[in-house]
């Protein structure tokens, strides 16, 4: 489903979260790319640029914050956001250090999620 809007990479080890997020954002006009593992996400980032990255925090191998730190080195222009089921466990300094600009909690509120992404990515449909 390719659109002309901003491109967004979503990373989550739970495939059902990926499809639910895609459903939620279906009419928002983003070009959405998904990855179920951090490695897969890095492969995508090496191949192409994206406008934003939304990543889960608790994943096998690497936390979302670590992943976003590394992703930021490869694609410094990409806006970085975390989505997690447990916000309190991530210290604010860690988020700031890797330049995470927004934090979404699971379960998410549809309207809030859309608004957060619009603000971060400047537009959508």
């Amino acid at each position: 489903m390719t659109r002309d809007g901003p491109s967004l990479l979503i990373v989550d080890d739970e495939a059902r979260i990926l499809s639910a997020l895609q459903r939620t954002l279906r009419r928002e006009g983003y070009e959405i790319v998904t990855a179920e593992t951090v490695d897969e996400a890095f492969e995508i980032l090496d191949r192409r640029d994206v406008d934003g990255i939304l990543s889960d925090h608790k994943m096998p191998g690497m936390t979302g914050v670590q992943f976003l730190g590394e992703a930021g080195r490869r694609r410094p222009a990409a806006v970085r956001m975390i989505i997690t089921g447990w916000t309190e466990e991530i210290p604010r300094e860690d988020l700031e250090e890797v330049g995470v600009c927004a934090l979404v909690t699971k379960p998410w509120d549809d309207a809030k999620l859309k608004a957060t992404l619009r603000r971060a990515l400047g537009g959508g449909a």
Partner: protein
Amino acid sequence: MNTAVLVVDADSHVVRCNDAAAAILGRAPEALHGSSAGAWFVDVRGQAVVERTLAEGVRFKGAEAMVDRVGGGAVPVGISCAPILGPGGRVRGAVATFQDLSEMHQLRQQVLQTEKMASIGQLAAGVAHEINNPMGFIHANLFQLAEYAGDLRQLWGEVEQLQKVVSQAGSPEVREAAARLATLAEEVDVDFLLSDLAKAIRESQEGSERIRHIVQDLRDFSHQDNGELSLADVNQCLDSTANIVWPMMKHLVQLEKNYADLPAVTCYPMQLKQVFMNLLVNAFQAIESKLGASAETGHIVLRTEHHGADVVISVADTGVGIAAGDLDRIFDPFFTTKKVGAGTGLGLSTSYNIVQRHGGRIEADSQAGEGTCFRVVLPVDGIGDDA
């Protein structure tokens, strides 16, 4: 701690005692003289201590026993006992010393409770996290499904119109196709299907909301670092919380407020409000389940008092009360007598944690069938720098 001393003769009759002994047993020293030592022990173990010392000449050190305090019920004591030996090694009597262990027992109980809370808190945090992941997509999917169902219903409305128009005009093939559509629509009962689809989704959304609520409770239970330490007006904390829950209870409850002048208390106001909220909701639910469908109303009395270095906040209700056997367990995490969906059993254990963090204590008094009173005792400046 004052040590009680008793001297008994070979027949176990008291010949000497000190004031501490009299105080623990709740009797005047004169009343103790000549009485039989074995008689105050409420347990066999305690009776055996004096008996065996006298009969066999054995010594006891720090044995735990229960004694009967006049007007005060059973008191736990730690007792040591040694024989007094006469000529030829004959036992002529015994000296018993003992100490009131009530306070120590209470402390031990508190430590156990705190440990239990901490480990369950960790477990709860883990569980909450695991639940939030699947809840994330279930919640979002239901939301989308509701939209899809709405779209489909609209679409079906148009299809139905089209079917009607076409079935009257047009070529035989078109009319036949329209008739097939009408038959199938009747077979699958499209109208029911569309409205039940929306209903099923709505009900699932309610369920998912409920799970969200439970997870929120779990989260509150394991994370109490919300809010800032400040000097607060406890009356105001209580009152604003009461105002929040008032609309929910006003049809069933008459609320009475007795606030004393209180000094500002060093506390986490947000957390105290959470405690008051739990107590108020419990009081309301207790009244609700007592009254059932009757047209009566119940009472809740909110009271604050200033006692020396403490402020005391109490919430008393005329609800169902708590069975004597449950009183020990109400502060346990997950202990609930409420039906599924109504209670998680975390309100009081969370409150217990919070009050303890404030250096205070929380107690319940209850008469089954009559009502319950919860008292929160908070030191005015209980939280030091270490909290």
